[in-house]
């Protein structure tokens, strides 16, 4: 598949599929070879993945993984519903052994991960070049601040200048140095 960056892609862009030619170049950071999440064109796939997380039993990984509680699932569902309204690119939804849920994004520009727990969430977006952005907060009231970071850092407009991305950082966000 040829990626044509001259096209003005719509804001509601989903993950860009990595071409093997891009993956073969020496990575500038270890995330460069991380598998890109599958192409999706609507949030139903993410909600389906969340449903799978909800149905997991105790020890779902064979090594004592915790069941994902209904509270964590509710927090994650609310977050997905918020993301859907902001037209943020669709994440992959994954259970974690300690009973949390992760929403993850991977593009040619970097990676992002939001881990949702019972009362807290933590988020990072790590660009291929540059500092990561970190966020933490109340898992029952996840705002769309991180969605802005995901969209602008990981899926910048195709018409943007190649080496500069204008990222508007909310006041409650801190940078990792």
């Amino acid at each position: 598949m040829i990626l044509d960056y001259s096209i003005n892609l719509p804001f509601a862009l989903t993950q860009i599929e990595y071409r093997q030619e891009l993956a073969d170049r020496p990575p500038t950071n270890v995330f460069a070879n991380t598998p890109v999440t599958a192409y999706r064109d609507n949030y139903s796939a993410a909600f389906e993945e969340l449903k799978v997380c909800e149905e997991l039993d105790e020890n779902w990984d064979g090594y004592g993984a915790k069941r994902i509680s209904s509270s964590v699932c509710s927090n994650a569902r609310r977050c997905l519903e918020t993301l859907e309204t902001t037209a943020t690119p669709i994440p992959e939804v994954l259970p974690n052994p300690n009973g949390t849920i992760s929403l993850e994004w991977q593009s040619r520009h970097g990676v992002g991960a939001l881990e949702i727990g019972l009362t807290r969430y933590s988020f990072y977006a790590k660009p291929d070049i540059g500092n990561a952005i970190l966020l933490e907060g109340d898992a029952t009231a996840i705002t769309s601040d991180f969605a802005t970071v995901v969209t602008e850092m990981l899926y910048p407009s195709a018409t943007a200048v190649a080496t500069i991305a204008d990222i508007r950082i909310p006041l409650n966000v801190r940078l990792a140095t």
Partner: protein
Amino acid sequence: MSDLPLEISDDETIVRAIYFPKYLSKKNEIKRQAFKAQAGTDQVSVMRYPFLDADFCKSKGKEIAAAMHAEQFRGLAAIKAGQIRRTGSSVTDSRDVYLGHADISHGFAPAPPGEPPPAEEALRIDTRLSELARRAFYNADPDPESEKWTGGELITKTD
């Protein structure tokens, strides 16, 4: 008395069973989740090869797959102990589980149950896991349904 030394040399091959879809992408690339620590620990269960041959590794992998939700055993990730150590994680013998069993330890304090680690720590952990996934070689099982391993000798990447 076993002749398997307690100490794991850098040149020894360490094996991790790989399941689809949690540990393997559709493009047959190892995901960093394959090296994620077990709940409440900083450890990942692995096997010492070739003391444990590929047949045993596969048999153990399928046994675990049976306990997992909708996961398919697909193959074995192989990585040298020295490659693991160069990422900052350690690998040590844990024959109290069974002879030939070992643990990769990442050295990060486990997050409280049901809660994520702080964001900076989450980034550090995922960076480590991605590095391990990048260094490991995925030996695909040509016949996952069979009881025996038919994929030949397990291969690792050279650094």
